[in-house]
């Protein structure tokens, strides 16, 4: 696994973009200006970026209600995302979708999804089309530990296996589905074995370690592109915020998040690794941090200043023709 200086810079930049984006949304949400349900991805950045760095223009991803990180990973415009979250006319979805439905099909991002388990069947379809049209494309289905028990997800795994579709099933196990522990909800407690039960090879990785995710994702996606059929990855980490904004997280033992933040943070871990290895320098990373903070400041300011959708938008975009 060779990661060039550019790759590393890119990885760090994108992970940091997610982090700053999410922390800022968290802060702004608390002021009451962001409407609806918002689920933050902070703490899970290594997954979106470690996986999406393997992808290109012919590839697709399906996402979840916790979709901001995947959007950024797949190259969605950050300004358009923020405007969407604020419900603005210029948002990625004209303000009609919001946080739970951000999408940019032109970027291969088939949507955050308000339905747990909604994405994996869609990913199978995108993969089937890629295979049939011989585009060389791969589809990644990101889904949570909770979604791993949903029939739609399980059916999709079987379907992909039977047709040996180029789908990468990425289980983002952040320990909880809402307030329910994944240790409890996943019968058998062995996701990799479950995937094998559908004929899909996979492995488990530590999601705090970008390099581990990157390596595993690369190997899996290489196998898929070589015609090896669907692959599975179980990524373990934690989320830093509540299930959604407003969740007091009393179901978590005191200190759980602090401990993860202090000792297992994927960004700190990345920084330590690249600086101690002499691959990137602290001041370059600091500069990236400053740039991103500025960028996100600007997206928030722009989003706040942006116009809401016009009344006439209510009834457009239902059909192509009707």
């Amino acid at each position: 696994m060779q990661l060039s200086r550019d790759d590393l810079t890119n990885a760090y930049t994108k992970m940091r973009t997610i982090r700053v984006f999410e922390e800022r949304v968290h802060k702004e949400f608390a002021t009451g200006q962001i409407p609806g349900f918002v689920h933050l991805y902070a703490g899970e950045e290594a997954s979106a970026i470690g996986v999406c760095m393997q992808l290109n223009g012919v590839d697709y991803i399906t996402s979840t209600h916790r979709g901001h990180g995947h959007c950024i990973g797949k190259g969605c415009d950050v300004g358009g995302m923020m405007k969407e979250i604020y419900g603005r006319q210029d948002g990625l979805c004209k303000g009609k979708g919001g946080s739970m439905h951000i999408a940019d099909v032109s970027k291969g991002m088939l949507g955050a999804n308000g339905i747990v388990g909604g994405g994996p069947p869609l990913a199978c379809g995108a993969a089937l089309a890629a295979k049939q049209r011989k585009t060389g494309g791969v589809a990644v289905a990101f889904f949570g530990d909770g979604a791993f028990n949903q029939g739609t997800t399980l059916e999709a795994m079987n379907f992909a296996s039977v047709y040996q579709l180029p789908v990468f099933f990425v289980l983002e196990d952040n320990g909880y589905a809402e307030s329910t522990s994944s240790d409890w909800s996943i019968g058998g407690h062995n996701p990799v074995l479950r995937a094998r039960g559908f004929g899909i090879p996979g492995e488990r990785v530590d999601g705090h370690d970008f390099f581990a995710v990157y390596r595993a994702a690369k190997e899996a996606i290489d196998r898929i592109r070589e015609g090896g059929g669907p692959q599975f990855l179980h990524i373990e980490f934690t989320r830093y915020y509540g299930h959604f904004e407003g969740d007091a997280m009393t179901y978590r033992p005191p200190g759980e998040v602090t401990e993860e933040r202090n000792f297992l943070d994927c960004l700190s871990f990345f920084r330590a690794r690249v600086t101690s290895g002499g691959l990137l320098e602290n001041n370059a990373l600091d500069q990236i941090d400053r740039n991103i903070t500025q960028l996100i400041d600007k997206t928030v300011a722009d989003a706040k200043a942006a116009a809401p959708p016009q009344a006439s938008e209510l009834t457009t975009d239902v059909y192509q023709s009707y």
Partner: protein
Amino acid sequence: MSKKSFRQALNEAMRQEMERDPTVIMMGEDIAGGMGAKGEQDAWGDVLGASKGLLPKFGRERIYDTPISESAFIGAAAGAAINGLRPVAQLMFVDFFGVCGDQIINQMAKFRYMFGGKATTPVVIRTLFGAGLRAASQHSQCLYPVFTHIPGLKVVIPSSPYEAKGLMIQSIRDDDPVIFFEHKAMYADTDEVPDESYTIPLGKANVSRRGTDVTIVAIGRMVKFSIQAAEALAKENIKCTVIDPRTTSPLDTATILESVAQTGRLVIVDEASPRCNVATDISAMVAQSAFKSLKAPIRMVTPPHTPVPFAGELEDLYVPNPARIQAVVSEVVRYH
């Protein structure tokens, strides 16, 4: 009697029925919360907190948190009902019925008929519905017309905390599968609600307000909006009857027809998508059965035929509101 929120009224109803009847159990995702986790149990008490406090009282033998697998646990509720329990299962948002619809529509709804009357399936499915919280297209639908369409199901839609408590208790005692709709934007509404247990029969409309000029039939949250419209109209000396059917299946057609016989004018307010919804259902029933009484076209106040939009500016246009109801009622009353 004391002021209680919709949430509290539901909580009290479920608590009192669980106390009274040991066969009542609860199921659902995070219905208590903290399952398998190291922190607080009963951490959620369902997503909007209506079942909070039941776990400490009744324990995990009565309260079943579930993995995210609606087909499995909604189906299990039906299976448990056939084997002697009375499950109250939460389908968190009614929008999710697409992942478990079969267990509702083809299984529990049809057992009794398919089995020649030899099965009883006393299940309540509580579910959140409705727009207003900027929850966007997949968390804001009404969908009760779909369940009203299906023979074998009962459909209950309370319009206030008082109604919520009495109807929930009755629904739990009912021997047929009941889909119980809770409007998420009404959870904080408060009302005088008796402390003791009481029931409101299914299939009996409530006439919230009586007036001789026009009949308004409204569903769920639209009842409150219609009463507000009626109050405003009263100032213009337009006297409205406001009928809350409470249940769309069975539907209390008699009360509606009686009122239309008197007023000759009907407006129906339904938050559901406009095609094949409850407004069309009631309109058609009246157009068929009370033709001679009608002095004006039956008007329906509904959202447009679009998914529910996210942005507040659009959602506020989407949901019928008192001003729109008032305007339509005025037109109907003025019609000659």
